[in-house]
């Protein structure tokens, strides 16, 4: 397995939400509520807000960067995003969130197999070293 790699640096902590399928943020998440609204997604209805969102890859729209930015502004965004395959469009949303709102939302490429749904983890992503570890003080 390759080492985790930071697409966008930052530190975050939250409960893991593992998505079984890729999700397009545009048409897939309502930034007003943080809810998965894609009717064909197996986890329709899940709330991404504050979670360490784990998904195999990105999907779909070029506007997903806008929806992620809007979710950051509205306070409904995930705490961090962990991708099995790099997705430039989600990384872009996080990069502009830092520019516009000073929010560091880490976006990391890492093997999703190592992460269990609902586990409390810390994501520490820097250009030099990136790790996702169990949070020391659960809750």
């Amino acid at each position, binding site marked *: 397995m390759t080492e985790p790699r930071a697409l966008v640096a930052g530190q975050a902590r939250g409960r893991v939400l593992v998505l079984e399928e890729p999700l397009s943020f545009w048409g897939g998440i309502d930034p007003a509520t943080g809810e998965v609204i894609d009717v064909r997604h197996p986890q329709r209805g899940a709330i991404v807000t504050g979670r360490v969102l784990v998904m195999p890859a990105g999907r779909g729209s070029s506007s997903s*960067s806008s929806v992620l930015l809007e979710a950051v502004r509205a306070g409904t965004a995930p705490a961090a995003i962990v991708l099995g395959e790099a997705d430039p469009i989600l990384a872009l949303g996080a990069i502009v969130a830092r520019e516009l709102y000073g929010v560091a939302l880490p976006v990391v490429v890492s093997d999703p197999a190592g992460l269990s749904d609902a586990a409390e983890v810390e994501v520490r992503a820097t250009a030099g070293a990136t790790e996702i570890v169990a949070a020391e003080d659960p809750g």
Partner: protein
Amino acid sequence: MLDLSARDRALLDGAHGDAAALAMRILVDMAGVAGADRLVDITSAHIDGCLYHGIAGLEFAERLAAGDARVGVPTSLNVGYVDLLHPERYRGDPADAERGRRQMDLYLEMGCRPTWTCAPYQLAERPSLGEHVAWAESNAIVFCNSVLGARTDRYGDFIDIAAAITGRAPLAGLHRDEERRASLVLRLEGLSSRLLDADALYPVLGHVLGREAGTAVAAIVGLSPTTSEDRLKALCAAAASSGAVAMVHAVGRTPEAPTLAAATGDAAVPEISVTPARLRAARDELDTSTGGALGAVSVGTPHASLAELTRLASLVAQHPPKVPVFVNTARDVLAEAERAGVVRALASAGVEIVTDTCTYLMPLMPEIDGPVMTDSAKWAWYAPANVGVDVVIGSLEDCARSAAAGRVVRDETVWMPQ
């Protein structure tokens, strides 16, 4: 390590204003994400970020405008939130319409052209084989790489305008020869010549492609060398919805795939067989409802071409619709259609022509009772969540016949195996 030119560094240092510096910071960060070691000059850009999704995108545009942003290359604009030619059709919150319009205005002030279309490849000027460009809008990205052979990576909102302002893009991803090769083959097997000549095939095949390829470049074997751009458009849009596809080769049809070996770079790659049964199952996956009375028809996602508008006009003349029929198109195509008398024919059959935007982006359709039929897998994919309707997919002719019948009427015989 990223090697910047003297001009790149001057932009980054703010010598050309705050907006250009912000644009270059975004490019430098995204070059890091993509693993690029330098930037490349682009000849044009297509902007998706002009569409309002909430206050954040508007604030980003305001920040650029306050920093004296001007585009440095010819730049077209994607759909916006408001149909500027038919604003009276809007049925949502007036405050959103005002913000959506403001966002559109800001991009015009930066020097972008008021094209307002998700199908910039249907404009008179479009990039040629081998040109480096920066396009956002998922369907346009696939069409640009695959059918035009121009080179764009899978860009999203914000880097699109950053590239337009600076005239630069990270030299990575689909800008590079080796990334454009197919790593997967979809082989069409047992499809009748009738199915290959049916409009219904192409959005559904694109849906299968998106599901199977995910983020990969695939090569499709078995399409006709004369497959029309409209059919490829439907295929590309679908693949960029159910997957993250940014390029596909149609062997014998698209410019970088004269042969399968050319598409794969002579590499041995995995093959998937696509059968009529697989396609029929994919078609059924796109439907969320097929029963009862039909509520409306929406076609033209991506924006209809003149050929598609002409065909729709002829179909609705033969089969006068009983339910509302909407067609989305670009204002440039509308102007051509007006000259050709097609707009008059569509209007006399009661077809509502939407420009500058799309029926699944904002509240535009009246209260609809029953599913909406479409010929677009992309519309079928997104509309249930975006506008809260059930969807059913068929060919353009199926849509017209169904609108006339007031219920779903589809030619199911096309899906029979050879």
